[in-house]
């Protein structure tokens, strides 16, 4: 699992916990992590995360049965989905806003980030701390979610299409599809193949884990179905409900790796500083020694400078390919059997 997760970015972790922001669908590059970090100070993120983990262990597969609010929305979804499914081929993945106000961030990896009730107040660029009630609410929300893994995506299916298919089973929050290797893509395009983006695997987060389970058990190893004429009618999808798995488990490892790397970097930097210091000290010492020697010489021109060797280094080897060079230098240049075979054939 770990290898697959590597592609996703650490940002989404923070994003998922703190920003549930519907109206001001803010955008950022995947590179400008620092911006995001400015907005969400690390410490706070860590604190919230810790709290979440504590609660997570207590009851993993608890069923939560308060879907009442969302039933209405689900109906609307289904209508939208039907539309989406029909004109799937016209849809642009890049900058597209879903029927119910979801926004896609195309971060080079095609990640869709959906909305859930906003718990963090980010008004005029200022964020407030979560109150304990809001935090509880947020934790509850996360506990309710369920994640499914898709080991195969029908060829060239766009995230938006997939979303519309899957949301037949319930409200979807986030969806991440891993694009195929760029080398494979370029090769295909070069030899006149399909220019569309292809995806190899993916993860989807349902707002309710009940939906996720239902979706996985229904769709797994089954035809997609839908309208008979649709492009994906006969395609088979593979899907598994990941029990006890949350979205931030996907991103957690990368966040951890980044932290480790950062720590390592600072350690190395301090080491380097020490090295630099020794260099500076040595330079000063050598100056001192040379002045002393100079003065001694001035006083007593006959005095021999005590330039005895303090330390000797093992020297790197010298080699040569020239025929005139010493035999030991060109030890590696002797023609071997294959080469002498070649030599006999040249003239």
């Amino acid at each position, binding site marked *: 699992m770990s290898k697959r997760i590597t592609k996703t970015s650490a940002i989404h972790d923070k994003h998922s916990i703190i920003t549930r922001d519907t109206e001001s669908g803010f955008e950022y590059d995947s590179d400008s992590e620092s911006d995001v970090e400015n907005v969400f100070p690390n410490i706070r993120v860590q604190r919230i995360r810790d709290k979440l983990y504590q609660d997570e262990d207590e009851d993993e597969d608890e069923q939560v049965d308060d879907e009442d609010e969302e039933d209405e929305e689900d109906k609307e979804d289904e209508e939208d989905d039907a539309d989406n499914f029909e004109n799937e081929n016209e849809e642009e993945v890049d900058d597209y806003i879903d029927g119910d106000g979801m926004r896609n961030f195309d971060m080079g990896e095609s990640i869709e980030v959906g909305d859930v009730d906003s718990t963090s107040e980010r008004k005029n660029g200022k964020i407030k701390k979560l109150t304990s009630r809001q935090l509880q609410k947020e934790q509850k929300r996360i506990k309710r979610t369920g994640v499914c893994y898709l080991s195969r995506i029908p060829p060239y299916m766009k995230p938006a299409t997939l979303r519309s298919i899957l949301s037949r089973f319930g409200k979807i929050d986030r969806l991440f599809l891993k694009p195929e290797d760029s080398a494979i893509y370029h090769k295909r395009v070069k030899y006149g193949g399909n220019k569309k983006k292809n995806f190899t695997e993916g993860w989807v987060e349902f707002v309710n884990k009940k939906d996720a389970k239902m979706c996985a058990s229904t769709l797994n190893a089954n035809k997609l179905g839908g309208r008979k004429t649709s492009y994906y009618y006969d395609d088979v999808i593979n899907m598994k409900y990941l029990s006890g798995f949350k979205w931030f488990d996907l991103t957690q490892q990368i966040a951890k790796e980044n932290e480790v790397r950062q720590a*390592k970097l600072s350690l190395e930097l301090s080491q380097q500083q020490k090295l630099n210091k020794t260099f500076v000290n040595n*330079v000063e010492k050598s100056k001192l020694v040379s002045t002393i020697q100079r003065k001694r010489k001035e006083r007593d021109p006959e005095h021999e400078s005590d330039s005895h060797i303090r330390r000797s*280094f093992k020297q790197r080897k*010298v080699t*040569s390919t*020239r025929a005139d060079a010493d035999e030991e230098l060109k030890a*590696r*240049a002797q023609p071997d059997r294959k080469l002498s075979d070649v030599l006999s054939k*040249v*003239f």
Partner: protein
Amino acid sequence: MSFEDLGVSRWLSEALAAMKIHTPTAIQSGCIPKILSGHDCIGGAKTGSGKTIAFAAPMLTQWSEDPFGIFGLVLTPTRELALQIAEQFAALGASMNIKISVVVGGEDFVKQTLELQKKPHFVIATPGRLADHILNSGEETISGLRRIKYLVLDEADRLLSNSFGGDLERCFSVLPPSEKRQTCLFTATVTDAVRALKEKPPAQGKPPVFLHEVETVDQVAIPSTLSIKYVFVPSYVKEAYLNSILRLPQYEKSTAVIFVNRTTTAEVLRRTLRKLEFRVASLHSEMPQSERTNSVQRFKAGAARILIATDVASRGLDIPSVELVVNFDIPADPDDFIHRVGRTARAGRSGDAVTIIAEKDIDRIASIEERINKKMELLEEVTDDSVITDSLTATSVAKRESLMEMDKENFGEKRKINRKKRGLETEKIRVVKSKKEKSKKSLRQ
């Protein structure tokens, strides 16, 4: 003396004149008539002495009398050199509708196969990829190679070394026997292999091999317009010194090539210098070929001021504008040092070579100084103090960061995997062999 006097055909001398080449150089006037009269040839030639034309002109002359494909095959040790030679061939033969195919690694295999099947007039190749084609592409592709009239081994001292042995063996297995083709060989040093070839008696019914300045080529000293300087520093502050050297007022704007011994060093330096806001390009074997070509182009066009390269760039690359060569590492072979500093001070221009010497390189420097018969001078502008105040901290931080980045991006992973594959292959062969032996033994019993 003009090219036509040497026996070069009219159209070609006109093409040469169009390229502003009117009078032949020493190697050209020596080799062209002999090659035209059917001699095999060994030429002692430094790069930049015009040897491409020395073999291209007679080949093209005879080809134009009876054009067929594949007429000639040129083998070079590096891809960049192959591309450079192909450019020159294309320029010379443009008026005659010449067809050239470049068969080098890192580029599209299938495309090359198709090109070879169409029988181009000349093939410029590196041995590894050509051997690959011979092994995998089928008879239709390589049938042209069985009829070639000319074989040129460029940089023969490098090419006729053990690292190319296996590939060359495979190439020679399809080439016609030596009586049926003419072979030209150009070298900058006389190695054991070249000496063995030189002393070999000529094959029956063939004129003797023509030798041009073969023994004297070793004595060629570095150009007098080149000043060779050094700094002597601990190895862990080499980068900081490099930074200071590149920022010296006299080198601030000059185009520079920095030579290193390893691909990893090249990559670290590229990232470090980029962080320090130099315009850099790099050239080493662990880059995709497209990037390699791109880097060279960028450097030639002046978009990058600094080229960081391993020894792939030490030979043959002709970039006249290079004003400074920095040896960040010291090569094991003194001749490599001469090749490296030969990238600057070309064709009578002046140039500087700065060598950064660390504590473990003193033996190597001694052998280099003995070889070039010249003592290096100390570069006095860069002092310990100036390095400490200006560049030490910034450079070391940049270096550590780049190392971290490379760790993150798994630099060198590909090479490791390839090694592993090769290692497995040899192991498999060993296993097969031992099995065969066992079965033989059991049969005997």
